[in-house]
């Protein structure tokens, strides 16, 4: 993949994506691009359409209209392109009855890793996500912080180009949240990362680019630096009807 990166199409492209759920337009006309080597924070209050957007990117939901393209390919046309992304839903998709190591090996095998590549990939990811001490523990017996880390590990065990994280630090204690943010920041160096959050510290700690979503529409999309230091005030102005670009 890397040798033809220069000619490759944009990694993630949302073209006029809309989604209606139960008669309500949850996401409207969303256009978004994301390329390799950047971390995009999708910021919004609860119900802004963040999770719906990420579920459409991951292929769990099909858009009511518009297109989601991964490397120029529509997921609906070629399901296998989903292997180029890793997805952590709001609730980590774990099997409580499995052990950390066997669960991650299953995830790697599921995403088509070769048999001889599975053990090294799992060891690497266990090391990277700090799961060494719990590798033989049952997932159901882990603390929320460790479960979230395993959730993150399953999303990246197959070294995808795009990592999609839905509220990765929600429900964690401050220390666990700091650790997860550090991990996400690290991921941004090798993968394209899109994460949704309503927590401003998540954005401040991990993202160089911010997209503010409110009532299903994109209100701001640009570098975090452009918004200055007082992200909170700007965010509140945007969600109460103001314009982030003007505010910045």
């Amino acid at each position, binding site marked *: 993949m890397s040798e033809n990166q220069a000619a490759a199409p944009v990694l993630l492209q949302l073209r006029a994506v809309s*989604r209606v*759920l*139960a008669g309500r337009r949850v996401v409207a006309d969303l256009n978004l691009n994301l390329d390799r080597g950047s971390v995009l924070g999708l910021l919004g209050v609860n119900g802004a359409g963040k999770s*719906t957007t990420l579920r459409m990117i*991951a*292929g*769990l*939901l*099909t858009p009511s209209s518009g297109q989601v393209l991964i490397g120029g390919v529509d997921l609906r046309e070629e*399901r*296998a*392109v*989903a*292997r180029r*992304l890793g*997805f952590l*839903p709001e*609730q980590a*998709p*774990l*099997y409580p*009855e*499995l052990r950390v190591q*066997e669960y991650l090996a*299953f*995830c790697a*095998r*599921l*995403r*088509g890793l070769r048999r001889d590549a599975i053990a090294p990939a799992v060891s690497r990811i266990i090391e990277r996500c700090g799961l060494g001490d719990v590798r033989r523990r049952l997932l159901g017996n882990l603390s929320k912080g460790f479960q979230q880390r395993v959730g993150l590990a*399953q999303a990246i065990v197959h070294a995808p180009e795009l990592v999609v994280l839905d509220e990765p630090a929600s429900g964690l204690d401050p220390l666990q949240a700091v650790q997860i943010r550090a991990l996400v920041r690290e991921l941004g160096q090798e993968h394209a990362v899109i994460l949704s959050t309503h927590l401003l510290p998540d954005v401040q700690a991990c993202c160089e680019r911010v997209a503010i979503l409110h009532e299903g529409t994109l209100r701001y999309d640009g570098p975090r630096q452009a918004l200055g230091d007082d992200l909170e005030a700007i965010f509140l102005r945007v969600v109460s009807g103001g314009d982030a670009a003007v505010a910045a």
Partner: protein
Amino acid sequence: MSLVIARNELRRLFAQPLAWALLAAVVVVLAYFFLLTLQGFLVLMPKIAGNAASPGVTDLVALPLTRAIASVLLLVVPLLGMRAFAGDRVALPLLLTSGLSDARVVLGKYIGLVAFLALLILATLAMPLSLQVATALDLGRIAVAALGLMSFAATLAALALWASALAQQPAVAAGLALVLNLLLWMLDAGARYEGVSSDFINYLALPTHLEPFLHGIVATVDIAYFLLLSTVALALTTRRLAASRVRG
């Protein structure tokens, strides 16, 4: 790739108490039944010993047991299959975003469940087979009966998966699958009581196609029936999964 999911399903079944408890309960109940029929046969044996045309131990012990296994499967398969989708809503995104087609996901879960049922049938058939030590069984007929039981169990498994994809809660899925099983089991009996003799209704009922196997007859029509019913149920399950992406 479906086999990766199948192996994982099997591992998960054995990691939970439900499967072990059901396996143990089925073996205990059927062992009791086996001992009763064996006792009956031993009482009867002196009377029929001189008559070459009289039924032997295969007819009087082994085959009644296969009929009992079929009845137990009607109740047990819904319980084993109920969690395939209905109890797996949290972890299902892992499979649905893995890049595999929905049909392969369904097939993987199906193969896992059928493999477990094969073990269960083998464990129970081991009881009459143990008589081979002391007497001569008609192994051909027992093999045909086993084939019939396997086809029957595989069909029930497909129905259980469909019910599990339709329902939100595992208990509802089990109830639905049980109703489906019993309806298909008794379909022709109702018509017969009413004096209606319809080939079509007879064709739809499960026992019409299981009984020939228990009499040592392998007919294409019966194999086709089980294959057709399983395929339809699995196709409906796949459709249901695909619809969940559209409906949300």
